[in-house]
């Protein structure tokens, strides 16, 4: 059976999938709002302990990576395979740097005995327990999405090398870009919620 190609259908499917991702995090935003409302003071104090510079750097990194993957789409549309691959490589690199920062950030908190189930955290009161519980869970789930995105982009790069994604058939690359933008967008919300609103 010959494959029936419909780029608009693929993109519609991707957008619908992004809706589900938004709602997945939406559930967590609801939980965050409820507990922030109940424990306003504790959330206020705990948020001051997170490093704003590290969060800002990570935000900038993700924004640049969103730009590079968008440019990669334009490059393939102009039939510039090398540039497109280079830009995807940049995107993957920036994603890895983001994860590296996250690793050191988490490591720093864990060294201070701030992690779910730790007695030190428990002794600081319920508001802190919930703040850090949400912090680890939400940034952890986001990091998992980054990892999935990186694997997806790597797979797309392979398809470009094998000339399966070309200047008149690049919907898969576009879809991976959409996914990457969503991951970026979620971070744009996580960043103020945990780092900036103190």
């Amino acid at each position, binding site marked *: *059976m010959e494959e*029936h190609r*419909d780029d*608009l*259908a693929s993109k*519609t*499917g991707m957008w*619908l*999938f992004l*809706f*589900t*991702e938004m*709602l*997945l*995090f*939406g*559930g*967590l935003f*609801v*939980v965050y709002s*409820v*507990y922030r409302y*109940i*424990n306003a003071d504790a959330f206020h104090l705990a948020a001051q302990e997170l490093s704003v510079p590290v969060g800002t750097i990570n935000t900038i990194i993700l924004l640049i990576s969103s730009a590079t993957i968008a440019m990669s789409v334009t490059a393939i549309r102009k039939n510039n395979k090398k540039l497109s691959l280079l830009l995807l490589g940049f995107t993957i690199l920036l994603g890895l740097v983001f994860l590296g920062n996250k690793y050191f950030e988490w490591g720093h908190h864990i060294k201070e005995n701030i992690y*779910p*189930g730790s007695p030190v955290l*428990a002794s600081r*009161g*319920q*508001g802190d*327990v*919930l703040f850090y*519980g*949400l912090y*680890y*869970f939400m940034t952890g*789930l986001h990091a998992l999405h980054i990892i999935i995105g990186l694997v997806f982009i790597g797979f797309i790069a392979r398809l470009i090398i094998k000339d399966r994604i070309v200047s008149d058939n690049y919907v898969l690359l576009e879809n991976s870009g959409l996914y990457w933008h969503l991951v970026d967008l979620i971070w744009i919300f996580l960043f103020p919620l945990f780092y900036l609103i103190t």
Partner: protein
Amino acid sequence: MSAHEGMQEPNYLEFKGKYKGIYSWIFSTDHKRIGLLYLFSILSLFVIGATIGLLMKFELIAPGKTIMDAKAYNAFFTLHGIIMIFAVVIPGLPAVFGNFMLPLQIGAKDVAFPKLNLLSWYLYVAGVLMVVISQFTGDQAPDTGWTFYAPYSFRTAGNMLPAVFGAFLLGFSSILTGLNFLVTIHRMRAPGMTWLRMPLFPWTLYATAWIQLLATPIVGITLLMIVAERLFNIGFFDPTLGGDPVLYQHLFWTYSHPAVYIMILPAMGAISEIIPTFARKIIFGYKFMVASSLLIAFVGYFVWGHHMFTANMSGKALYIFSLLTFLVAIPSAIKVFNWISTLYKASIYLQTPFFWAMAFIFVFMIGGFSGLIIGSLAADVHLHDTHFVVAHFHFIVFGGTGFAFFGAAHYWFPKITGKMYDALWANIGLTVFFIGFITLYMPMFFLGVAGMPRRYFDYDEVFHTGNIISTMGSWILYSGLSIIITNLFVSLKRGVKAPADPWGGSTLEWTIPSPPPVENFIETPIITKGPYSYK
């Protein structure tokens, strides 16, 4: 069809593809074969779930321990709930008949993403396997009920992790099916099939798909939070750590109430196909049927709080949820009125699928009205967590969705298999099943009003009579079920060959041979008029 008599396309059952034997099924991306993969998985699980139900009813034949103790009973109702809700009624009509019939009814060759369609079946199987694993590993089977209420779900010694993760996978499978159907309906309708020329079954699948897509992620994240809670002791829903168990209930029902409409909407769609076909009349109020499907999907989003009337919500929230619950009954009632009106002055062709549709309306009405009783605040305080609620949702979920499933199975059996079922045995099966159904669930209403709580293996002596009647009903129901399923399997072997259109149906699936060719339509049909056009 006559123009193509010379060039016989192989039908989808005989088609020889890349793979042979079982592989030609489990690696097939043909929507018809995937529909049948779902049919066999769902039917097997349904029989398992029904057998567990039968054992539970047997336990309740007398007060005290009959065949199982409290622990075993808890494990049984949990497994019965998880299987029946997540693995049978939610995917039931969309994944089986939706998969098979949606492309046929809109004149398409397949769904928009055939590979994704197969992937969602694999996720379904993986989810079921996780639930099975939860039963046979660990010290104790899950015992929380299918709702996984916090904080018990992360305190119990029951083996919750695989069960919760299994439910998560089943939800993911459901999302992918919904996504696939949405894109299919938007992009693949045959030329000339405008939105208002689309049959009603695809319309209900469309409304359902939006619910699957927009509600399921909420339960997905909630289940992941339960997993995290058990693994890392985070405290989301643990009152000792500052969490709020009622918040869990809100999140859970934000999905699980709309899920009720995932179950019932495609069932209504199947009934809306059966009734005009056997009434030989265009459906009454087609546009109202379309609008009511969309309205049910929309309003159904905002009624979850009625599961929590006794969970200490604010007074205002209670009134609003109760009001919305009454409102959501209106579009369902519109459907019932329109089905009945379609029958007015119709020339009715009395066949088994029509009898199923009538039985559906009867039990659905009882289920619906009893829903209004527990949707009213004061009555619910008395009836909450009693057998009344059990009777109510079995009338809707088993009576509504189950009856529509069997109605659809008989209606489309000739199209799917190319054989006719034995009508006499089908009618006998339906009659026995119906009598059993009423005998089983009707006494539960009375037991509930009298105050018999749900989810206990034991009860007070005053409830004995009602329970004896109910348990005997379960035996009749199970016999009816055996007759129906046996009859369908025997007919598969011995049934006479079915013509392309045995019922005189007017939707597109009846214009192609039974069973359908691999590519469905030899020539893409061009649509010039609405569905159900009878002269």
